[in-house]
Each structure stands twice: as C-alpha cells, then as structure tokens.
C-alpha cells in the first residue's frame, strides 16, 4: 500500500494532465445524445423521450467552473408512451406546444464534486415559467468525446405541466424522473 499509492497518484496525473491542459469540449453531437424520462400513472412507470433537442456546451475539464451549457427542447417532439398520450401532452393542459414550443435550460454555475462529478445549477424555463434547477452530472471522456450523464427529478406542477383535471397527483404523479446524456467532442484546433 505505502508504495503503491504514490505510484497510482502519479499515473493519474500523467493520464489526466495532458487532457486537462488542452481540451475543451464544444461540438455537440446530437446523434449520440438522448433525453428520456419516466412518469408514473396509477403507479405504473411509463417510459418517454424527446427526439428533438439541442445543446450548446463548452466544457474544459481543467476549468470546470467556467463551463457553459445551454439546452433547448422542442416539446412537440415528445414521445410520452402512446399516440393518445402524445396528443394529450402537446395540448393546453400539459406543454401547450403551440404557445410554448421550446423548453430551455441555461446553466449558471458548475461546481466540481470530485470523481468527474459536477453539480450543475441553472434556470429551467417551461411553459412560460422559470425555476431554479440543479442536477448532478457525470463526465466521461473517451477519445475526443466527452459524455455528460445526469438524472434528476422534475416536479411537473412547478411549471404548470398537467393543469385542470390532471392537476391532482393521484393519477399522474408530480415527480418526473429525467435522464439525459449529452455528448460533445473537442473543439477543432484554434
């Protein structure tokens, strides 16, 4: 143990140091990214996802607190599990996609938590309502790509998603489990 620990630490520095110096991940890769969610109706978990969304990212592992992230979702691209559900969720009581087609998250701070984990806080705007939102994000670097994985719970009532007859959480729960994966590759040499 006594002998191995410094060796491991040195190896870690050698491996991460060159990457940390030079790389900034800025080129968002839509094809490799995903945005999925799970909601519960009558305590039945139902999987859903958004197909159309985009991100603007700038992440330099050596300066994580200077990272920038902006995220937009075309709400009409929702798949809430069935055709009926998709039609319903686009309507006035839910996303009201005619009036509010896009949801937007803008990161305001990034706090390193260690082990390639970060706490990203920012402002989430859906359906004309803006709320503070924060989520843990795990960054995995592989070659010239960085993957940003996170999961969080969003409360639909905070944004008025599911008004009127749906406002009661007895059928559709308030908590929506969200799971995202964003991939960005390193910037071309400047």
């Amino acid at each position, binding site marked *: 143990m006594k002998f191995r620990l410094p060796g491991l630490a040195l190896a870690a520095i050698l491996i991460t140091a060159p990457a940390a110096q030079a790389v900034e991940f800025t080129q968002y890769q839509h094809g490799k990214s995903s945005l999925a969610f799970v909601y519960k*109706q*009558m305590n*039945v978990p139902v999987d859903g996802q958004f197909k159309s969304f985009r991100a603007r990212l700038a992440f330099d592992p050596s300066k994580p607190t200077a990272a920038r992230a902006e995220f937009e979702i075309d709400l009409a691209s929702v798949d809430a599990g069935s055709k009926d559900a998709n039609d319903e969720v686009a309507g006035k009581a839910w996303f009201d996609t005619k009036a509010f087609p896009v949801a937007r998250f803008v990161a305001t701070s990034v706090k390193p938590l260690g082990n390639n984990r970060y706490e990203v806080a920012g402002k989430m705007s859906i359906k004309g309502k803006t709320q503070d939102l924060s989520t843990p994000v795990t960054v995995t670097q592989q070659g010239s790509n960085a993957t940003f994985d996170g999961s969080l719970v969003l409360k639909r009532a905070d944004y008025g998603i599911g008004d009127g007859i749906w406002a009661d959480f007895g059928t*559709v729960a308030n908590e929506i489990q969200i799971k995202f994966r964003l991939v960005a590759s390193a910037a071309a040499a400047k």
Partner: protein
Amino acid sequence: MNSAIPHSQTGYTHTAIGLHWLIGIAIVGTFALGLYMHELPLSPQKLKLYSWHKWAGVTIFLFALLRLTWRVSHRPPALPAGMPGWQRSAAEATHVLLYLLMFAVPLSGWLMSSAKGFPTVWFGVLPLPDLLQKDTDLGDLLQQMHKLLNFTLAGLVATHAGAALKHHFLDRDEILARMLPFLGRSKNGERK
C-alpha cells in the same frame, strides 16, 4: 357421517360453486368495463379504469388457477342420464374452452400491456414482470387478439348461460339448480 345424503356425493362443493359465481360475475363486469373504458377520451378517469380493469383481470387469472386446481381434484357431479350424446360433447367442449379462455384472455391483456409499454402494477403495489419488450406493432396485434378472445369468450358465456336456462326451464332438470343451491332448494320444495 354424511354418506347417507346423496347431495354430498352428486353435488358441487361449496368451493366450486363459490368460484363459479365469483369468476362469472367478475368476468362479466371486467368485460363491460373493458368495452366502456376503451371508448373514453383520455382523462385521469380513463387511466384509473384501465388500471382497475387490469387489476381485475389479473385477479380473475389467479382465481381461475385456483379453480382449475379445484376442478382437477374434485370431480363435478355427472350430467343427467337421459342427455343426448351431442349435448354432452357440446357441454364438455364449451367447458374446456371456457377454462382455456379464463387464462388466455387475461394473458393476452397482460402481454398487450407490456408490448404497449404500459406495465401492470397489481393494485398499484405489485409490479408484474414484462414478458415482452415495448413493441407498438406487436401491442396493436395483441390488442386485436385480446378483443377476439374476449368476443369468443362472450359467445361461449352466452351459449353456456343459454344452455343452463334451457335445462332449467325447458328440460326442467337440476343442472342449473345444482350450481345455484338457493334455486335448488325452492325448486325441490315446489316439486316434492
């Protein structure tokens, strides 16, 4: 002790009678609920009814298991001696198919739900495993299957009930009364 009473040898057990009516009424109710909920526009009420329907269907499946076990270990009373052969065969075939559908209908519903991506959580507490992955086309096919099996079941139930009524009112035998003890007593009272 009771060996002198012919009914204890020839009649259905209380368990068999109880299961028959419990499952019968539950199937009629679940069937009606299925037809009704299917037509509703999407609403919390509809989601509730879908879940109730699924809970009821799974419960029927479990009672059908119990019933089949009972049936295998307790022979039913014999059919009336004078009954024509074709009627015996028809009765037997109907009963076999009814047993099959008691399992096939809920099974198709469960598989459909999995394929459609809406798992079954029994009474909102116990998640049933999904034997099928989400596959919308397969889900639609299984929905047609569930419907077809249900209408076959409805046809058989109508035949079954019609035959029982025919035995009671036209043939005036004990077929219905032995499954409906209350009726049996009053009928015996009238006759004898």
